[in-house]
């Protein structure tokens, strides 16, 4: 018997009211319960699919996502290098609906009412939820760079740190830059999305210059004291493949940008005028999470319970992916967000079914970086729940780095991409 038919058979008057109340209690035991997922990236898309899989398709899932298709940040640096196209890194959302019955709503969430358990859509509609999964990714703290508020500044000095139109626009800037020009890449203080990503980007831009603009240069301005990920492997690649092409300057904290002249302004160092300025601003959790009061760590990141990914600030709201206050040794990565999505999905299904939540999450992170068009290096780690400290900790003795860059790992990196895109979206 369907829920609505059952309610109808209850008849009129107070009995119907009582019945309705009971049925909504019933909904929270699983079948017919409503989950709304906000954000269709690695975290949200995976959570949406796996809530359906883990509940044998009995829990209703709606995914709210503004973009028409998923565009992957991992592999997007290869588009900048001219080795891949936007089509290569784009995956449609339709398999989530066709194969898994996820309702995909192309919209933005304007606000969340945690007390009423509803989300308001930018288009005006409202969605009720029993549990909400927020995977809003990152937003940029543009107020830390006053010059970026000037008209047109954000269209000229790009981040391309959310794959999409800016990826293509930055590629076009690199193509338009005359030979002999300088591409400057500014990296914020950690934590930021994808720790090795900027160093991979430097390799990819340099690989393009080496072929097409040999008099050009890549200058990396890093706010951190040193290379934050895969240091030895990147330094080796820069020495072997890009000698004289890549210059690395640590301890350069960006404080402002003059977009009109592509000038970077630092806290303690001289200004630098670039041919193409690529600025990765300081980051925090996606705006909707901040606005809902979930960013309780430094007003930037969302603290969660690592068994369920439920927010420490609001009941029935789960936050995952790059937006969370990470556990020790846990990177902000697409792979990790996908893992969060599964752990969160398992917990949400268990909670809605009134069953015990799996109590020992263990998952890995693997992160591949291209140092040339074909050669790749990786870093891997295994993370396990520690009940005493109530957080995820890396398992001693596990994980590690590539011994050297290789073409074999280049093939594995693309296999990784195909598999994680399918695992998250198909």
């Amino acid at each position, binding site marked *: *018997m369907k829920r609505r038919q*059952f309610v109808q058979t*209850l008849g009129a008057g*107070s*009995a119907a009211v*009582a*019945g309705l109340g*009971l*049925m909504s*209690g019933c909904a929270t*035991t*699983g*079948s017919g319960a409503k989950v709304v997922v906000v954000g269709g990236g690695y975290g949200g898309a995976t959570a949406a*699919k*796996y809530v359906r*899989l*883990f*509940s*044998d398709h*009995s829990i209703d899932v709606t995914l709210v996502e503004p973009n028409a298709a998923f565009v992957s940040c991992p592999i997007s640096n290869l588009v900048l290098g001219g080795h891949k196209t936007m089509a290569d890194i784009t995956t449609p959302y339709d398999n989530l609906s066709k194969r898994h019955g996820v309702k995909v709503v192309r919209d933005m969430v304007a606000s969340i009412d945690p007390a009423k358990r509803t989300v308001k859509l930018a288009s005006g509609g409202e969605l009720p939820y029993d549990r909400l999964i927020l995977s809003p990714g990152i937003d940029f703290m543009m107020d830390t760079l006053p010059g970026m508020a000037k008209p047109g500044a954000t269209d000229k000095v790009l981040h391309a740190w959310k794959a999409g139109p800016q990826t293509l626009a930055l590629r076009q800037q690199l193509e338009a830059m005359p030979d002999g020009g300088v591409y400057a890449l500014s990296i914020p203080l950690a934590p930021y999305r994808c720790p090795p990503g900027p160093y991979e980007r430097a390799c990819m831009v340099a690989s393009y210059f080496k072929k097409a603009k040999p008099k050009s240069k890549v200058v990396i301005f890093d706010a951190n004291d040193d290379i934050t990920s895969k240091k030895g492997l990147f330094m080796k690649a820069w020495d072997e493949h890009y000698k004289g092409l890549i210059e690395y300057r640590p301890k350069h904290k960006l404080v402002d940008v003059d977009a009109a002249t592509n000038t970077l302004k630092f806290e303690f160092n001289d200004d630098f005028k670039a041919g193409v300025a690529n600025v990765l601003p300081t980051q925090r959790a996606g705006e909707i999470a901040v606005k809902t009061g979930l960013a309780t760590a430094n007003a930037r990141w969302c603290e969660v319970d690592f068994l369920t990914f439920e927010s420490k600030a609001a009941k029935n709201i789960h936050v995952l992916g790059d937006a969370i206050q990470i556990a020790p040794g846990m990177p902000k990565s697409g792979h990790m967000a*996908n*893992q969060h999505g*599964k*752990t969160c999905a*398992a917990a949400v*299904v*268990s909670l809605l*079914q009134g*069953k*015990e939540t*799996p*109590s*020992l*999450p*263990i*998952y*890995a992170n*693997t992160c591949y970086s291209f140092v040339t068009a074909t050669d790749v290096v*990786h870093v*891997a*780690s*295994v993370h*396990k729940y520690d009940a005493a400290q109530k957080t995820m900790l890396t*398992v001693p*003795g*596990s*994980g*590690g780095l*590539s011994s050297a860059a*290789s073409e074999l790992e280049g*093939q*594995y990196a*693309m*296999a*990784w991409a*195909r*598999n*994680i895109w*399918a*695992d998250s979206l198909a």
Partner: protein
Amino acid sequence: MVKAMKWLAAGVLCAAAAGAQAQVNQIKVWAAACANCHGTDGRAQPGAISLAGQGKDDLLQKLMDFKAGKRPATIMHQLAKGYTDEQLADIAGYFAAQKK
């Protein structure tokens, strides 16, 4: 009285709905963590090895060899070390039971 019976009926329906669903068990979620590279339920996209439907003993032996450093690898020797032997056996058992 009629009202009480309807409460009861709704309660029975709830219990039945909940009972019909298998619990999301820990092993399934551990195995799901392998899907990033080996495909959902171990059915891989081209370029990676499918784990679904492999023999349990064979799969476990490979994992144990990765863990012991006896089997050459780029990454699996680093990942296998993150799991106990029992956990590896559970995960191997899960993939062995999946349809190819």
